[in-house]
């Protein structure tokens, strides 16, 4: 399973970025290889408009099985993400990436 997190930083101890479209980074964790990859979202967070859909496109290219974020994507981005057949977990506000992963494993995050 590959799991994507929206995060303000680059490590397990970084905070979850509650914003989807304008998240600082996307962290991708591969449960098989145990590797955590950092994908910068610098190019998109500086778009004047349409950040949500552009980030959704980026997520599509990374093709994770699960997305974990805070407030959640907006309407159009959510529609796009749902067509990708991935699980979208929201509500991981005010916690580290590791804590969010832990909650997800325990089935304690809200699924859209």
């Amino acid at each position, binding site marked *: 399973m590959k799991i994507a997190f929206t995060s303000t930083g680059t490590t397990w101890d970084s905070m979850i970025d509650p*914003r989807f*479209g*304008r998240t600082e980074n996307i962290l991708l964790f591969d449960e098989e290889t145990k590797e955590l990859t950092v994908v910068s979202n610098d190019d998109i967070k500086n*778009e*004047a408009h349409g*950040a949500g859909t552009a980030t959704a496109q980026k997520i599509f290219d990374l093709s994770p099985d699960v997305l974990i974020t805070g*407030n*959640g994507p*907006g309407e159009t981005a959510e529609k796009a993400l749902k067509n990708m057949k991935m699980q979208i977990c929201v*509500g991981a506000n005010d916690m580290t990436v590791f804590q969010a992963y832990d909650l997800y494993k325990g089935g304690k995050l809200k699924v859209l």
Partner: protein
Amino acid sequence: MKEIVVISGKGGTGKTSITASFAMLGGQDVVVADCDVDAADMHLLMAPDFGFTEGFYSGEVAVIDQSNCVLCGICLKKCRFDAISVIKKQFVIDPLSCEGCGYCSRICPAKTIINKKRLAGKWFISQIKTGSVMVHASLGIGADNSGKLVAKVKNEAKEIALEERKDFILVDGSPGVGCPVVSSLSGANFVVLVTEPTVSGLHDLKRVYELVKKFHIKSGCIINKYDINPDKTGEILQFLEENDIAHIASLPYDENFTRAMVQGQTVIEYSNGKLTEILAESWGKIKQLTTN
């Protein structure tokens, strides 16, 4: 540190007057962010010192380097926005008409047109009369607010709040339901919806609440001028109940709102009566709802 965003959906409900009062009541615990950048007016009430100023760039604009121009006129013929004209035998681009599409720069045979980043406005960090800090912005003529600018203002406010260990960021949100509002809401811990008992007040409240719901943010509502239309106020209260939105307060119609604004003051500085009492109670409730 918690982020409280005040939005209204509809203009003229008293959002900024109420936000400014909360900023006064919060005093040094609150960093203020004015994200209503299209019609920024919070600065009129907060006496900012514009201590730090920086340009804000968004989108692009084409510029002709006259020294290499061969006066062929192709750009003028091809520009779909009629942004290019001849002034004193020179081809000149009107930045207000230019959409920054870059087509002229692509077809220019002399390669003398380039697309530059467009200066859309300025953003500021100010010391304000509450004893705290406000991050705000002002746009140039014809420039529009964007999710990017709102995110910029909010992020700066957030950094200051973290650095100075402030308890709250108070955001005067953007109007409507478009990109800037999405950016205002994103990352918020609590949303205050300010409305009034009119047909459009209720309609726009419902519309903006759809957005708040989408982002799973707790919210509460203040009904301003509740006594001008008791029937509509009843409908609003019913809507709040049906959707589990906290009813923070109902404020009576009061001309002190306007009088205070004319004096460049917040309502609570100007009048010391019932209104101040309700606003102080409301601020207390909001803080409680945000932190719980």
